[in-house]
C-alpha cells in the first residue's frame, strides 16, 4: 500500500503525517490554555505572552530553528533538563520535528481558539455556575463544546502549517530519512537539483491531496459541530 510511490517518498509522507498529527494534538491543550489566558485574564506579562506566541510567525523560520536549537538542543537549558530528568531527546528525532512544527503552528492555533473564546456568551457560563457546576465542569461542558468549531479550525490551520513546515524543522533537527525528513524537506532538496521538476510535482501533488483531504474532513466535522450548536 504505497500508492506506487518509492519507499523513501512514502516514508516521508507517513512521517509528515505523523509529525503534523502529533504536533497538532499535543499542542492543542496548551493552545487552549494560552488562548483562554489571553482571552479571559488580565495579568502582568499578558502582552509579553501574546508576543511570545506570535514570535514564530514574525521571525524567519531559520531563526526560530536556531532558537530551538539553543533552547532545546542536548546542550541547551531545556533540552538538557529534558534529557536528564525525563530521558527525552529531541535532537534528530521526529519528536524534535514535531516540536518545531508545533511551535511554528502555535500562533495560528491560539488565534483561532481565542476567537472562539471571545464568541462564547458569558451568560451561559453564569447559568452553569448557578446550577452548581464547578469551574472545571463549566469549562468542560459549556465553554469547550461551544468553542469546538474554533478549536477545530485552529487544529486544521495548525495541521496544515505543520505539514508544510520546513525552515525551522531542518535547522533544528536536520533531515534524517525516517526520522525527520518530511515532505517539505524532500521537496526542498529536489528543488536544488536541476531537472527534478517531475519529482517535485509528484510531492507537491501529494501535499495538495493531503491538504484537501484534511480540509474536507475538517469541514464535515465542523458542519456537524455547528449543527449541534445552532440546532
Amino acid at each position, binding site marked *: 500500500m504505497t500508492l506506487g510511490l518509492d519507499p523513501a517518498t512514502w516514508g516521508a509522507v507517513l512521517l509528515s503525517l505523523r509529525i503534523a498529527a502529533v504536533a497538532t494534538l499535543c499542542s492543542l491543550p496548551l493552545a487552549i490554555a494560552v488562548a483562554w489566558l489571553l482571552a479571559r485574564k488580565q495579568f502582568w506579562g499578558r502582552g509579553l505572552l501574546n508576543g511570545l506566541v506570535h514570535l514564530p510567525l514574525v521571525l524567519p523560520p531559520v531563526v526560530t530553528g536556531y532558537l530551538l536549537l539553543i533552547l532545546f538542543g542536548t546542550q541547551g537549558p531545556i533540552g538538557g533538563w529534558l534529557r536528564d530528568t525525563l530521558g527525552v531527546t529531541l535532537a534528530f528525532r521526529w519528536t524534535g520535528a514535531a516540536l518545531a512544527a508545533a511551535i511554528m503552528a502555535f500562533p495560528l492555533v491560539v488565534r483561532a481558539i481565542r476567537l472562539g473564546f471571545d464568541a462564547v456568551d458569558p451568560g451561559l457560563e453564569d447559568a452553569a455556575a448557578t446550577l452548581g457546576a464547578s469551574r472545571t465542569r463549566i469549562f468542560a461542558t459549556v465553554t469547550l463544546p461551544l468553542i469546538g468549531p474554533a478549536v477545530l479550525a485552529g487544529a486544521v490551520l495548525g495541521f496544515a502549517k505543520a505539514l508544510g513546515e520546513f525552515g525551522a524543522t531542518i535547522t533544528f533537527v536536520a533531515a534524517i530519512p525516517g526520522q525527520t525528513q518530511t515532505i517539505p524537506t524532500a521537496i526542498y532538496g529536489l*528543488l536544488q537539483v536541476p531537472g527534478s521538476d517531475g519529482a517535485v510535482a509528484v510531492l507537491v501533488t501529494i501535499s495538495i491531496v493531503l491538504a484537501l483531504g484534511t480540509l474536507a474532513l475538517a469541514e464535515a466535522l465542523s458542519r456537524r459541530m455547528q449543527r449541534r450548536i445552532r440546532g
Partner: protein
Amino acid sequence: QGVTVFAAASLKEPLDQIALTQPDVTVTYAGSGTLARQVMAGAPADLVVLAHPDWMDALEQDDALLPGSRVDLLSNEIVLVAPQETPALDLTPGALTDALGPDGRLAIGLTASVPAGIYGRQALISLDLWDAVSNRLAETDSVRSALALVARGEAPLGLVYATDARVEPTLKVVARFPQGSHAPILYQAAVVRGENEDAAQALLLALQSPQGLTAFVGAGFLPAGQP
C-alpha cells in the same frame, strides 16, 4: 545603471567587501538553485556567481548567459570540523564511527542538493567511508546549519567548507578531504544576457583581479584551478 549580482549565499562576506569598492553594485544572495531558477525566470541579474557548475549548465542550456563569459572564479575545500578538544582524525571508517560515538551524527548539507553535501557525498564514497556513515548523517539545508549543529554540540562532527570552518572559534578542523576525492569545488561566474552586459563583464573582471581575489582569499577561498 548599476550592476546587480546574484551570488551564492556563502560568498556574502568577501563579495560585500568588493562591492564597496565598486561603483553602484547590488548583490543579492540566496542558494544557488534558487538564484539559477530566478535568472531563468527573468530576474534582473547582470552577473551570477554560483556554488556548483550543474546550475551554471542549466543556465547555459537555457541560453540565459552571455556566451563565453562563464569563468571558474574560486575553489574551496571540504573538511571535517569538531569541537576544539577533539583530536585530529584519520579518514577511516573506524576512526569516523569512533568519533561519532554510539549515537552521534555527522552534520552535512543535503547530500543530493546542497553543493557542500554533494561534494561531501562524493568524497565519502570515494574514500570508502559512505557505508560507515550513510545512516549516521544529519542533513541540513545549508552548510551554515550543519556548522551550527556541531557548534551547539548536537553533532560531534560536521562536513563543511574550509571557509566556514574558520569562523567558529569553538570548532577546529580535524580532517581535510583530499582534492581528488571529489569533483573540483568550483564557484563559477557568468554574465547574464541583457542590457547591462558590459558593466557586468567589467565587474567580473574586477572580481578576477588580484584585489578581488585578495578579498576572497582573505575569507578562506582558494583561487580557481589551484588545489
